[in-house]
């Protein structure tokens, strides 16, 4: 039983880390910029398709496909941000919702047109396949890799937002645009960079997710719900919150399905509602 | 002052935000018909005290008594229904509603008819007429049917007051009713206060000492969250401690 508990915790944590990578970008853009981007999952889908295409058509190794996915999603998002999203910053949340939902539709259609409706399998390098056996426990190698990636991203983000000049500028721009402008910070550019970062992370998350959850044109819509749940539970704008929230939900989900499979499918929603009723701002939310 | 006559009293009211003690053991009494001014330098805790009395903040210690009843645990809306109403320093209005609608809403809430979803609003004639009359009193009759957001700032300050009056308060807490209003207009605002029926007790925050001395029957001076002195204007004006408190910080009046 103890051995099983360990493996369930491990699997849940790994699943949570996948959710974390997919959603942390939205937490950044929603929390810092107050922009409700329901098309976040679409950038994840973009990253997934870029990674798969880079590997199959261009022969990129997996480790190179990941940053390619990040860059592609970041670049595309900057184009959108500069041309379209920026007009919506003051347009009210309902308009942001409608616009980005429209974008999800458009992106799904575009993905269908370019890649077809079928699943896009990703073929991992050998060293990421299989499992590591410790005693009687078997840990999936890819899951270990996922956890390592998520920890690295968390460390980079926390460090980047709290210890670097750029991070200070982002936080200043968010706290008070006018003051930031007065201090000579180019708020426009800061927002563009922040948005690119958030969407790039979604792209990276999408690329990492293909191996676990597959990839087809409905990806953007399908994972929207999970992403929103993590962001709400973690608290807007908090990287740590997203990390803890995702880990909690992942472990809760897997453990729930393992120990009480009858309510396995409800558990994640029950946790969502319960947590938000007790802490409406999420676990680490400030505003 | 005997607390038996007081309509509103606080007893040992305290509140801290983190390590900062913003309200310190405040015990004041507001008799029937009072026109009390609440003054003090910035950061003295004036608005916090209003928030505590009105129920928008929960005190860490102490009590609020309304006509002798302890209302410390009572929600804001319930206090309003008992006759304890406040206004806000920063306009807290309904931008898309017209003054007529906004004041009618307040009247309907007071009369307990705001839940009647089956009756057309126009059939509540008495409520509408009453609200129109209140607006007329405050010289808002001409703009009664224009959206609030289109009103001039001074008119919006008047509407703040109109909304409070529509609740038929027995105690009125006015948080800088003339905040941001040019001096000539603020006199007009206070003439409204002066014209309020005798039985309403008023506690108001104001920075302009000319107005304070013109309208207040007594003055409560707050400093560092606690009551420094509470007395008639002439005594307060000559009190050295008050001067001391005001020196060093921005001078008012």
């Amino acid at each position, binding site marked *: 039983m103890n051995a099983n508990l360990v493996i369930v915790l491990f699997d849940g944590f790994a699943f949570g880390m996948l959710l974390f990578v997919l959603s942390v970008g939205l937490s950044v853009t*929603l929390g810092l910029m107050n922009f409700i981007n329901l098309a976040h999952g679409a950038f994840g889908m973009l990253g997934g398709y870029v990674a798969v295409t880079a590997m199959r058509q261009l022969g990129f190794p997996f480790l190179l496909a990941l940053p390619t996915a990040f860059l592609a999603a970041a670049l595309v998002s900057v184009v959108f941000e500069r041309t379209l999203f920026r007009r*919506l910053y003051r*347009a009210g*949340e*309902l*308009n942001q*919702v*409608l*616009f980005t939902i*429209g974008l*999800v*539709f*458009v*992106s*799904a*259609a575009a993905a269908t047109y370019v890649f077809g409706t079928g699943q896009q399998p990703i073929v991992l390098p050998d060293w990421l396949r299989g499992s590591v056996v410790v005693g009687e426990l078997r840990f999936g190698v890819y899951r270990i890799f996922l956890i390592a990636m998520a920890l690295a991203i968390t460390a980079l983000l926390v460090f980047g937002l709290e210890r670097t000049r750029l991070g200070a500028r982002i936080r200043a721009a968010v706290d008070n645009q006018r003051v930031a402008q007065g201090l000579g910070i180019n708020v426009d550019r800061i927002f563009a960079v922040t948005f690119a970062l958030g969407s790039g992370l979604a792209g990276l998350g999408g690329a990492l997710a293909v191996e676990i959850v597959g990839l087809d044109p409905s990806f953007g819509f399908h994972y929207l*719900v999970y992403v929103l*749940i993590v962001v709400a539970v973690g608290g807007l704008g908090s990287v740590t919150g997203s990390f803890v929230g995702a880990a909690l939900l992942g472990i809760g989900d897997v453990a729930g399905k393992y120990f009480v499979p009858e309510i396995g*499918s*409800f558990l994640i*929603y*029950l946790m969502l*509602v319960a947590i*938000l*009723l007790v802490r*409406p*701002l*999420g676990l680490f939310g400030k505003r | 002052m005997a607390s038996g006559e007081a309509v509103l009293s606080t007893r040992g009211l305290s509140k801290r935000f983190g390590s900062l003690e913003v309200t310190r053991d405040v015990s004041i009494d507001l008799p029937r018909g009072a026109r009390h001014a609440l003054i003090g330098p910035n950061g003295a805790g004036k608005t916090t005290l209003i928030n505590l009395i009105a*129920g*928008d903040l929960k005190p860490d210690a102490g009590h609020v008594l309304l006509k002798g009843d302890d209302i410390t645990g009572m*929600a*804001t*809306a319930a206090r*309003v*229904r008992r006759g304890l*109403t406040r206004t806000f320093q920063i306009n*807290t209005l*309904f*931008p*898309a509603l017209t003054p*007529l*609608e906004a004041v*009618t*809403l*307040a009247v*309907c*809430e*007071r009369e307990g008819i*705001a839940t009647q*979803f*089956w009756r*057309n*609003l*126009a059939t509540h004639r008495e409520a509408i007429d009453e609200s129109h009359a209140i607006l*007329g*009193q405050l010289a808002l*009759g*001409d703009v*009664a*049917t224009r959206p609030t957001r289109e009103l001039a700032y001074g008119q919006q300050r008047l509407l703040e007051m109109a909304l409070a009056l529509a609740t038929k308060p027995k105690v009125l807490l006015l948080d800088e009713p003339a905040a941001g209003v040019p001096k000539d207009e603020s006199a007009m605002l206070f003439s409204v206060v002066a014209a309020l029926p005798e039985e309403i007790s008023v506690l108001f925050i104001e920075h302009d000492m000319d107005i304070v001395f013109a309208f207040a029957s007594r003055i409560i001076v707050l400093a560092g969250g606690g009551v420094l002195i509470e007395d008639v204007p002439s005594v307060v004006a000559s009190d050295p401690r008050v001067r001391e408190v005001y020196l060093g910080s921005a001078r008012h009046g």
Partner: protein
Amino acid sequence: MSNTTTTAIDPAAWIRRQSRWSALEVAFWLAALLPFYFFPTYLMLASQIAVAALFAISVDLILGYAGIVTLGHAMFFGIGAYTAGLLSAKAGWGEPISGLLIAGAMAGAVGFVVSFLIVRVQHLALIMVTLGLGLLTYELANAMSWLTGGTDGLRGIDIWPIFGLFRFDLWGYTAYSYTLAVLFLGFLAARRIVNSSFGLALRGIRENVRRMPAIGSPYRRHLQAIYTISAAIAGLAGGLLTQTTNTVALESLSFQRSADVVVMLILGGTGRLYGAVLGALVFLLVRDRLSGVNPQYWYFWIGLMLMVVVLFMPKGILGGLTRLAGRTKG
């Protein structure tokens, strides 16, 4: 009380004017009859548009008037749909009008219970709690497939003729007559609600919830009341769909349906009831036309339409039309 009033306006008359029927409105409802004579092959579509419009009105009451953003309202639509379906399939009661009322009452009762949770949260938490509850209900219905029929849908629904006279025909004459009548009654009810003192209180909550307690408003109870009413109307819409199609499946509870109705509402314009009707009409009509032409890629154009509407008509189609009308007049 005072004689300082100098204006000549009669305030009550002004208030009444705000809720007067305009010629345009009358024309709109008359136009709703057109399908009977000119587009008889579109009656089933018209009927489903009427259902969606009623559902969108229910959401407008909370989102447009009281500021409660929801992504889980399919919960009540589905409860109404299953109630109407189960009444017939399991209890053998296929009388449509009583069945519909029971469906609405059931959804309203659940809405009342849920409203205690809803008023505790705002903003993102509110959206996510509605979403979470909606998904919970979906999973619950799936788990209870012995009752609901699960993903395959509930079988054995047989709705009796209306008043024992008008059976639901293949063409949809009865279906559209029925849904249009219920939509119209639902619209009248919603219209009365938003033009009442209660409706005024809701607009107050939407405009500035912080002020409400300061004017003595028990606004949480108002929110609970409108949430319950809205849930009941959503239940009516769900019941209608079941009764006019003899089918109900899990999809009636899905996130997709919750999201679609919000999209329709914002598309049409929030806080004006006709926005809900117009949004449902435009969304479903455009979707039907596009998917007929291009079944695989129609949603590309729908998506594009949503984006264009946001960029050029930030207050929805109805807001855009109003502005356009104002411009041509002025």
